[in-house]
């Protein structure tokens, strides 16, 4: 397929179909509604189902049921909706079920606003549900990457039996860029022997469950899941480095904020400031090892985010106090300009 010009939210929908997903359960919320609107048009044409649930809570539990049958399934929402899905996500993790969850973030807390935001970073990477848990969180920065990572998300979910989140924001959901849906090679998926879609009198009954009433059993189960997480941390970390080799100042930034940061870096380089960008593509697992190694060469770090300072905690943990880490962010749906970030770089370069 050649390149086509498409909107981010529509690309998520098309990429899901491309990945073999034929089941979508969701509930409308701005700024991601085009995902369900696109799937409402497209799913019937590919033999799939796009269902509008009565709530986000029902939608995520429909995902739990559909995933239990072994089929690929998608849900999407925006920030307040993700809070509602939190219960179901925890159960899905506890039941070791794969699925893909999209969060096109808006400002919060509460109803907040509908403009682009990255204020759900803590929620996505720390506590998307109750209990000891993580999910894989992918943060695209372009429309092509939205297409690639949405397909990758389905593969990762099946390989590791975990929910995978696409963590985008209102700007990425709404903007248009060229996309080639065939740019990515699918991965090998293990056989799903655990599904609950009828044993057809050929095997013992399968039970999909997150309850372990004996604490010894629950601890064993969680430790085993964290061994899987360790494997994910060792093999699935993705990031982009831009001009970091000789950088004095390394900006750490993801998603839409990283694109503005990149422009600010180009402007800074022209002004003689040696700046670079480390862009996490997986925000969980976080590219901590790479940042630790950059702490040997860079003089200082700057985390640029669309929030009041969330990922900056992960940057500080990664550089282990070896170098100073500063933060620059706008919140509530405000997006920093190139000049704002360039101004911050100029200020930091003076004290190098």
């Amino acid at each position, binding site marked *: 397929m050649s390149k086509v010009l498409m909107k981010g939210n529509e690309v998520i929908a098309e990429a899901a179909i491309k990945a073999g997903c034929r*089941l979508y359960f969701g509930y409308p919320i701005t700024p991601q509604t085009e995902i369900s609107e696109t799937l409402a048009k497209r799913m019937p044409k590919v033999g799939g189902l796009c269902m509008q649930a009565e709530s986000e809570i029902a939608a995520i539990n429909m995902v739990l049921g*559909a995933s*239990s049958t072994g089929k690929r399934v998608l849900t999407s929402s925006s920030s307040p909706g993700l809070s509602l899905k939190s*219960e179901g996500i925890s159960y899905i993790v506890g039941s070791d079920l794969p699925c893909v969850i999209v969060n096109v973030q808006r400002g919060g807390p509460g109803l907040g606003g509908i403009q682009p935001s990255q204020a759900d970073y803590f929620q996505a990477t720390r506590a998307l549900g109750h209990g000891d848990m993580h999910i894989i969180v992918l943060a695209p920065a372009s429309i092509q990457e939205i297409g690639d990572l949405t397909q990758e998300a389905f593969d990762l979910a099946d390989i590791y039996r975990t929910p995978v989140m696409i963590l985008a924001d209102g700007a990425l959901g709404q903007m248009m860029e060229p996309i080639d849906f065939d740019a990515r090679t699918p991965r090998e998926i293990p056989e799903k022997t655990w*599904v609950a879609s009828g044993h057809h009198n050929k095997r013992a009954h399968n*039970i999909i469950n997150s309850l372990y009433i004996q604490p010894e059993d629950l601890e064993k189960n969680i430790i085993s899941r964290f061994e899987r997480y360790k494997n994910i941390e060792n093999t699935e970390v993705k990031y982009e480095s831009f001009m970091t080799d000789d950088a004095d100042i390394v900006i750490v930034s993801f998603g839409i904020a990283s694109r503005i940061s990149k422009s600010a870096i180009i402007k800074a380089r022209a002004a003689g400031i040696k700046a670079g960008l480390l862009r996490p593509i997986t925000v969980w697992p976080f590219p901590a090892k790479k940042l630790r190694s950059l702490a040997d060469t860079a003089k200082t770090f700057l985390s640029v985010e669309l929030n009041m300072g969330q990922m900056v905690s992960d940057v500080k943990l990664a550089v282990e106090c070896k170098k100073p880490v500063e933060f620059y962010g706008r919140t509530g749906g405000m997006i920093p300009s190139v000049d704002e970030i360039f101004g911050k770089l100029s200020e930091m370069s003076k004290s190098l």
Partner: protein
Amino acid sequence: MIVFDKPHALTEMPFHYCPGCTHGIVHRLVAEVIDELGCEGRTVGIAPVGCSVFAYNYFNCDMIEAPHGRAPAVATGVKRACPENVVFTYQGDGDLAAIGTAETVHVGARGENITIIFINNAIYGMTGGQMAPTTLPGQVSTTTPYGRDVKIQGNPIRVCEMLSTLSGTAYAERVAVDCVKNIKNAKKAIKKAFETQIKGLGFSIVEVLSSCPTNWGKTPEQALEWIRTDMIPYYPLGVYKDTTGEKEVK
């Protein structure tokens, strides 16, 4: 000649239920129906939160445990992913009529082709006898120690009556398991509900008036008597909706 045997659709796992609790009877009825319909291999059961949380250990079909109240949504996901599956949920009154009211109403509204087995024992069992949506006016529970006052705690919900108003509900019947006659009738209703689903007619629900001697503070015999004297008058037995026209609707 074998005249009485354990249904194949039940596993060897012994039930954990309290003495005199009728969950065991209802489990058996569901399993007998699955055996008689020969659908065990394509049946998926959704286990609830509450006393019957371990239902997944007792049924021989594939089982999925749902979050509290969300079983109808989980069942929807299974059925929509695999329409050839026979899908049932097994839910108590707190699960179905309190935290999961929205999910329950909407499977009825959608005409979701699933079956709900609804255990109404007018109290929360597992958490130790608190008020349920179905707790009767005046009934004492640990959270209504002076009896349920409808001015404070509101009125009980009559689930079959409510769900029978929904266009997608194909079959709704309330039964009880307090005596042999009613148990036999309960089995017929459960079978009818499964058949309604297998025929693809829409949403089916069987509400079973059930006992909870432990939390009612009664002996097993007194508990069955209380179903007759107090529950049935408030929750009349009978068919509330039957789109097949086979049964007489109240």
